């Protein structure tokens, strides 16, 4: 809404005042995330800007905390950096191991959640689905129930069934937590889906499998991928379940961060945080591009 030319001085003041207020709120949203990026290059073990950093002196900045990420937990961190050193880092560095665990658990739980969730979303979006509302409520509930309650329940369940401290246990739990996101995004994509396309396929003799893989899936793929990314980020960011049911072998990045924050908080945490922020920017860009593509495919907006 542009400011009309007949606006009085009070209206004019409010028009600009309102934008300043909104600017401050955007600042409140973004500043905490952006401020850790320069701080992670701090040469000193402080959480504030030093004199040297403020005067943009190169000596005030360093990569020491990123280096610590590599060396923390290594057997021989001070050895010359040859192939053996890198092999040591790959095997023993605590953060690299956490990253490997996060990726294994995240990818496996995402595949599980996306496959089951997409199938269920197809059923849920059919008009003839019985008990739709009740079933939807059950499937969405892992997102609503506080994570601490889920983790408590899983702790009892896993100690009884022997899944505690195993990769399978963490993967199943994370898949459950990711499912609501897949269901919501895929059913939202299916709202605008033109069912005459599948009927046309069927009338031309395609089997249900062919219809799904050749017609339905390519059209809903953007929604499926955003759902999968949501499921992945849910697993990638989850700490409470890992805290309760995982053993030392299944430490993930958030779990390692939790340790770092609770025990000896050092700027090394900020360097992890910076890497994660860059990672989330990449994910957000992907989801945005997919969303626009999906809208264009369905003809909802001119693109």
């Amino acid at each position, binding site marked *: 809404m542009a400011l009309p030319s007949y606006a009085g001085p009070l209206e004019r003041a409010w028009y600009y005042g309102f934008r300043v207020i909104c600017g401050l709120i955007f600042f409140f949203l973004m500043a*905490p995330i952006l401020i850790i990026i320069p701080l992670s290059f701090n040469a000193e073990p402080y959480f504030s800007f030093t004199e040297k950093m403020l005067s943009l002196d190169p000596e005030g900045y360093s990569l020491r905390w990123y280096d610590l990420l590599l060396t923390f937990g290594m057997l021989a961190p001070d050895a010359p950096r040859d192939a053996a050193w890198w092999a040591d880092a790959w095997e023993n560095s605590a953060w690299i191991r956490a990253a490997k665990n996060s990726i294994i658990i995240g990818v496996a739980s995402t595949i599980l959640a996306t496959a089951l969730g997409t199938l269920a979303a197809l059923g849920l979006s*059919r008009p003839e689905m019985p008990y739709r509302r009740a079933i939807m409520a*059950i499937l969405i509930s*892992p997102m*609503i129930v506080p994570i601490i309650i889920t983790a408590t329940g899983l702790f009892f369940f896993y100690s009884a069934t022997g899944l505690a401290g195993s990769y399978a246990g963490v993967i199943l739990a994370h*898949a459950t937590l990711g499912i609501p996101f897949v269901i919501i995004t895929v059913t939202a994509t299916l709202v605008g889906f033109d069912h005459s396309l599948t009927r046309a396929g069927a009338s031309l003799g395609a089997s249900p499998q062919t219809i799904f893989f050749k017609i339905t899936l390519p059209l809903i793929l953007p929604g499926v991928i955003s759902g999968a990314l949501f499921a992945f980020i849910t697993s990638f960011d989850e700490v409470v379940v890992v805290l309760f049911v995982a053993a030392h072998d299944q430490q993930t990045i958030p779990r390692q961060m939790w340790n770092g924050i609770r025990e000896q908080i050092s700027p090394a945490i900020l360097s992890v945080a910076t890497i994660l922020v860059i990672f989330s920017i990449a994910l957000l860009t992907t989801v945005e591009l997919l969303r626009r593509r999906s809208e264009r495919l369905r003809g909802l907006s001119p693109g």
Partner: protein
Amino acid sequence: MADIADTGMASAPARAETLKTADGTPLKAALAHAAKRARRRAFLLVAPLLAFVVLTFVAPIGQMLYRSVANDGFSANMPNLVRWFAENPETEPDESAYAALAADLALAAEARTIGVVGTRINYDVSGTRSLFTSAGRRAARLEAPYREALLDLDEEWGSPALWSAMRAASAAHTPNFYIAALDRQVDPEEGIVSVPEDQRIYVPLFWRTMMISAVIAGICLLLGFPVAHLLATLPMRLSNLLMILVLLPFWTSLLVRTTSWMVLLQSEGVVNDVLVSFGIVADDARIQMMYNQAGTIIAMTHILLPFMILPLYSVMRTIPPSYVRAARSLGANNWTAFWRVYVPQTVPGIGAGVLLVFILAVGYYITPALVGGSSGQLFSNMIAFHMTRSLNWSMAAALAALLLGAILLLYWLYDRLIGIDNMKFG
């Protein structure tokens, strides 16, 4: 519908026969059959996921609920005493009771379960765990008369409170954890009574959680409303650009955002440094913004703000600007047009945002645990405390069940008012 069906029936005899499909079955039956098959097919698509969620989510929560009323730590390991309690429902403990107790202590010490037994009684009568473990070490050498022998070990064995606790624990199922979770206790004479004011923990904590969550939802609404309004009224291209500023925090790891706030709010942190350098705060009087309630509220407001902006935005987007213009042209001033015409149309978005933020805030654990100190702890932190520190798992389960009840009530309200189908991201 019924009328149409009736007239259909009435006109059928006039045509002398009912409609049939090619293979001779009545059309109605064939349609019903087809509809049934379609329903079954739709259900079969959902069935694998439903089974999965029931197994990995509903069953664990069910087991947790069972755990909140069941604790067989005492009853499974003290068979003689359990039998004595069952045979003598009213009598005071006599020599036979003490004999059973001594036999069980020896048994439990042998099986190394004496610690479990002591822990179970310790939940109800504090300080008794060591009583059991030390008696267990000497139980094998005890001789008749057992009453004197046990009282010689420790006078506490004669305490009526201890015996009534053991009698209560001799049943594997007990409502005691819920009674304790509601800050009540069982009094031998008066039944269930409130614990003294200074010992109440859970009920005040529950109300504090509700209050902090309400404050956070309120601040989020205050901050989210202008931003959502701006995003909804700007041209699409610009608002899409600004939307990134809302979505990036939404996509950023929760721990990262909590860490940033820890860095910002520390007494040697950026916010205090800025305040000191501008001379607003003296260097030796830096504001304590973290490890207290303020820290929890600031960090959680920031984390939950996108959950307020997104539903508000999606509702505001659909409000035609012509309504406000019409109000203005009919003589309403800016405020009246906004308050009487615009705001009522945003109510569904306000409801969705406030409820969503409130539901999420009530169950929050990580942020309060890291920045909350002691005054900023929420109900979830108490559950975690009983799970990881005091190891009173039945108590944790009872507290979790109460929190779950509160959340499900809110969730039901959300579903009634907004509908879970309408939940969207981005």
